[in-house]
């Protein structure tokens, strides 16, 4: 069954966003490790998850982490600490004052780089888990009708990524078949051309097929009205995104963010209500927001709330400085939240028992 036992794909995205938001609040390596394990755990226990997708994101995360560490080795920190290795120092022109290349590499600076890198890695893993647990394209089906075109563009872009991988493999094989070694930047540039050609041809085919099957059919709606609705929804989304960023970044005043969030949500709701009245599209078996979906979403929320709470209860525990080197403390509240997220993911692992009867109603 690929229908995910009926769990609303939005629930997984809320869950993953919760964990990502939690990770963005902390650089505590132990807590980040815990969050990463919870994410991987959720994908592993879920029977219909596409694990290769998470694997793909995990590889990117590993590269990011390695890059962050490599940078810390090359560009050394001016702060004193426990020297691990001493590299030859390279003189830097005075224009770039403050930049140091080479010199002593300290354990403290490596630890700081590791923390920062892990934070990014967890964010990537969360995105990967969301894609693995709920196909971005199925989430797209839940978008309000007025945003559908925007969503289709995104979904095709997402779908093209694996196609590029297949096309690249085929072209690499073709290089070999023509007796050319598959290495070196020139060869890669030459190989890129057929890959792009193939991808372009495929997307044109897809566009033609979608058009032939009615994509973009319009009811008797005036175009200006449609454009206004779409614009309102895009602005609302941007407002919500900016407000959320403000709320989650420490040191940003919530007196600005909260009204902005309220305005964004209000505008979005208005746009959806108007847009729904105009839509000619109907929907085949829309996913339902079940109690189980609430539970999964609540699990994600628990992770972020607990981390915020921990920041208030035990200030400093979320961002251990590493100066001096000490074993970081792990706030109990945050651990409890992460475990809650894991449990909620586990609860969604079993297929839904609700019979799949006719789901009435158009969007």
């Amino acid at each position, binding site marked *: 069954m690929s229908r995910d036992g009926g769990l609303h794909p939005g629930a997984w995205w809320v869950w993953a966003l919760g964990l990502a938001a939690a990770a963005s609040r902390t650089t505590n390596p132990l807590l980040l490790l815990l969050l990463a394990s919870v994410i991987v755990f959720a994908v592993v226990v879920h029977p219909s998850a596409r694990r290769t997708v998470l694997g793909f994101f995990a590889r990117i995360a590993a590269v990011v982490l390695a890059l962050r560490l490599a940078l810390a080795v090359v560009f050394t920190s001016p702060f004193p600490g426990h020297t691990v290795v001493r590299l030859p120092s390279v003189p830097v022109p005075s224009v770039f004052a403050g930049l140091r290349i080479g010199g002593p590499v300290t354990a403290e600076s490596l630890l700081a780089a590791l923390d920062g890198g892990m934070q990014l890695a967890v964010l990537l893993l969360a995105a990967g888990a969301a894609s693995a647990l709920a196909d971005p394209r199925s989430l797209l089906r839940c978008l309000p009708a007025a945003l559908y075109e925007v969503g289709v563009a995104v979904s095709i872009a997402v779908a093209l990524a694996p196609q590029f991988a297949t096309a690249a493999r085929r072209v690499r*094989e*073709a290089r070999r078949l023509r*007796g050319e070694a*598959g290495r070196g930047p020139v060869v890669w540039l030459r190989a890129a051309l057929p890959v792009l050609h193939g991808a372009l041809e*495929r997307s044109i085919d897809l566009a033609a097929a979608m058009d*032939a*099957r009615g994509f973009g059919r319009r009811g008797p709606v005036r175009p200006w009205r449609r454009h206004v609705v779409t614009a309102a929804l895009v602005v609302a989304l941007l407002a919500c995104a900016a407000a959320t960023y403000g709320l989650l970044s420490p040191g940003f005043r919530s007196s600005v963010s909260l009204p902005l969030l309220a305005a964004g949500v209000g505008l979005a709701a208005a746009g959806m209500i108007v847009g729904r009245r105009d839509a000619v599209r*109907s*929907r085949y078996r829309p996913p339902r927001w079940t109690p189980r979906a609430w539970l999964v979403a609540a699990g994600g929320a628990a992770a972020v709330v607990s981390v915020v709470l921990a920041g208030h209860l035990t200030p400093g525990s979320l961002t251990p400085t590493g100066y001096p080197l000490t074993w970081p403390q792990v706030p109990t509240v945050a651990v409890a939240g992460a475990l809650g997220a894991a449990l909620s993911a586990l609860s969604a692992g079993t297929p839904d028992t609700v019979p799949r009867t006719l789901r009435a109603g158009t969007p």
Partner: protein
Amino acid sequence: MTRPDVAARRAADPGHPPVVEFRQVTMTYPDADAPVLRDVSFELGEGELILVVGPTGAGKSTLLSAINGLVPHFTGGRLDGQVIVAGRDTRTHPPRELADVVGYVGQDPAAGFVTEVVEDELAYAMEWLGLPPTVMRRRVEDVLDLLDLARLRGRRLDELSGGEQQRVAIGSVLTAGVRVLVLDEPTSALDPPAAEEVLAVLTRLVHDLGLTVVIAEHRLERVIQYADRILRLPGDGSAVLDEPSAAMAVSPLAPPVVHLARLAGWHPVPLSIREARRYAARLRATLPPNPSRPTAPSRSLGGEPLVAVRDLVARYGTTTALRHVNLRVERGEVVALMGRNGSGKTTLLTHLAGLRPPARGEVIVDGVRPHRLRPVEAVRHVTLVPAEPSDLFVADSVAGELRGLPRGRELLRSLAPEIADTAHPRDLSAGGQLLLALAIMLSYDAPLLLLDEPTRGLDYAAKERLAAILRARAEAGRAVVLATHDVELAAEVATRTVVLADGEVVADGPTAEVVTATPAFAPQVARILHPLRWLTVGEVREALEAG
């Protein structure tokens, strides 16, 4: 199953409006010197299966896409005249406004899939038509039953076999309630059983629902017996609508059954095996049971064969694609690899070409293990023309592709003199792309040539040229291994046929014995002359001329 009565009845009932009507249609693509369709007029009625026949580049795809407005709304260019479908003019109705009357299924159905699960794909067009959920639910169930897709409803589209994908693509336009179904080469990528499955579905739609089905197909032998009328595009931009046997009496493109009928002087021309067998009694009586075939190259005693595959196992992740395959190929042989889609044909070829190392066992070609060689050395022993020849192309002109290959120019000129040096490789027809790829690969002059599914999109003329090239290779002491679904080509060129099933070799022997053993893989001539073991029209012609 020809039904001339359909046309007669329609002619007698002038009040019955046509479903598809072309009125003096002339279509010119942007930057083209000449129109691809010139002053084309015809009418198609309800419940007809129309087969569009013509050489590559005669405008078959253009004509099909003009029915649902993709030409010219999507492709650009200038269309004069009128195309009217179910009373709607395509000039004022773009493809999306025709989605509820015309269903279009392109050459590669997977390229047109929008969703990821069978059931959602079936519902997609209905969502855009704004049908109420209760109607959608019922139509999806109806189509699942009609096309025998019920057990696939929750499956991911990319996990389906070729035949299943084709049926889902047909189903996904049927749910919209279309009256016309347009298919561009629906069976060309399918193995014979899967093609039968798809054609059975199409005839059922014509007979049970009264749908008008328009098919373009190069492999006439598969489709022609189901056609009610034939739309013939001779290649000069015109189009002639005719009864099948009348069209086949004059068409230069014809399946083997028609060629045999012309040779034996049967009238009217039979189109199905059943009809042909009724005529063939006398021919069967005059022919000996076996044609005199040149004996296959003898197994070199003690000497090493050109190809020796021993106990080869291939795996992709956890799935095993080849299980303990053994294969020997001698110099001078043409070996056809046949078998269902997914039976391991392509995997075997990629191992012979050294693209992948064997998981177990060994592959020795021309005394070397190809996967251990550097690419530049490997091409001196073995070359492979992949299923998508365009993968090989990197330059923006034919001359650019052949740069650095001294013999390539000369070879291409002998294979396809009509291909201009300045042409863009990706603008060539399917046949042109294959011949260019073949010229590139032949210029290495390796002792082993591999071809993966070389006949997709080739018309009979191009196929004959390909057959001649392959035979010439074998006569020159080289060997050819080709994976193909095309039994007629195998009968034409292969000295030996190997059948794979589920990664195992299930039959290996002289082509005449292997292909006549099972009806699914038997060429038309063998079926008509059964129990005699004749495979091709050429063999019969030689025998008749000699005796």
